[in-house]
């Protein structure tokens, strides 16, 4: 096994308080730390834990294709592993949830014969369930990146919870050069084709600081198009009633309808 290694960790959403002790130890004891976080204070905190930690934010540039940014980030992480360092790559939230670079760095490191592992973290979805009092096990949960949801048109089960990420950038393929202009009109059209226009959804943003409440706004789907949403907002569409049980299946399982 070559000398370098890679540990990919998540810092959680809320500054410092949601990092696991295992992830914190990985940051503190790594030879080198590379990190990607949304928040300036989170960067300050990581650099306190590991002086000399390197931010990967510089790869995000206005107008640049996101795929190019991801490739450069993975290459930067791998270059330090190849140089023989015990590298910790720290990402905002959970390092394996909506973080393609975390998975790709692990995959490539292993392919090149290096030890590589991922440690779980607290994701934005975890915060969402806690803050909004929702249980994905109650009626099921569908979770999509908002632009992918529009482009790939997955079948939607309206009796289950629907969570759409990054609605503040829906329709954007590059890092915006100015204030984002999300295509909420297109998203609203798609949702209104699935749910009643009066159906109420929640616009949500987890709080990164212990002193701040999460952002939670109620909105009718019909009014979504004109909404000013926070950049990292998520849309939560509650279920429309409950699914009817399959009587044949109940019978086969020896269960009676409740």
């Amino acid at each position, binding site marked *: 096994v070559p000398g370098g290694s890679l540990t990919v960790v998540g810092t959680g959403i809320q500054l410092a308080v949601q990092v696991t002790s295992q992830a914190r130890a990985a940051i503190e004891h790594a030879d080198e730390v590379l990190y990607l976080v949304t928040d300036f*204070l989170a960067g300050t*905190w990581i650099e306190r834990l590991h002086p000399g930690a390197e931010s990967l*934010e510089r790869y995000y540039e206005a107008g640049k294709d996101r795929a190019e940014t991801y490739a450069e980030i993975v290459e930067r992480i791998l270059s330090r592993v190849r140089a023989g360092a015990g590298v910790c790559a720290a990402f905002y939230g959970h390092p394996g949830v909506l973080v393609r670079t975390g998975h790709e760095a692990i995959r490539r490191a292993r392919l090149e014969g290096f030890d590589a592992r991922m440690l779980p973290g607290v994701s934005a979805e975890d915060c969402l369930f806690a803050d909004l009092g929702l249980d994905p096990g109650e009626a099921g949960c569908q979770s999509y990146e908002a632009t992918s949801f529009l482009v790939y048109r997955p079948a939607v089960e309206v009796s289950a919870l629907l969570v759409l*990420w*990054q609605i503040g950038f829906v329709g954007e393929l590059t890092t915006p050069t100015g204030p984002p202009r999300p295509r909420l009109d297109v998203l609203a059209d798609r949702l209104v084709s699935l749910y009643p226009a009066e159906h109420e959804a929640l616009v949500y943003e987890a709080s990164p600081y*212990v*002193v*701040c409440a999460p952002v939670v706004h109620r909105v009718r789907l019909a009014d979504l198009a004109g909404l000013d949403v926070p950049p990292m907002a998520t849309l939560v569409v509650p279920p429309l009633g409950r699914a009817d049980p399959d009587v044949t299946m109940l019978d086969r399982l020896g269960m009676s309808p409740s």
Partner: protein
Amino acid sequence: MAKIGDLLVDLSEDPRLLREFERDAEKVMRERGLSENQRQILRDGNLKRVRQELEAENPDATVFVALLRPIH
């Protein structure tokens, strides 16, 4: 001048300070030398307003970066 950013990091790092803040936020904020305007921002706990204040405290830094996730 005291910065709310420093207090936010310390509150996240120090459970005893956080407990003290939850018990008597005004005392902690006074002891840290925060201005009345800074104290009001923390009392309100409005995320947008806190970010604006962090931007004012750190004019050369990017306080918040929307890291877009991949589209498959």
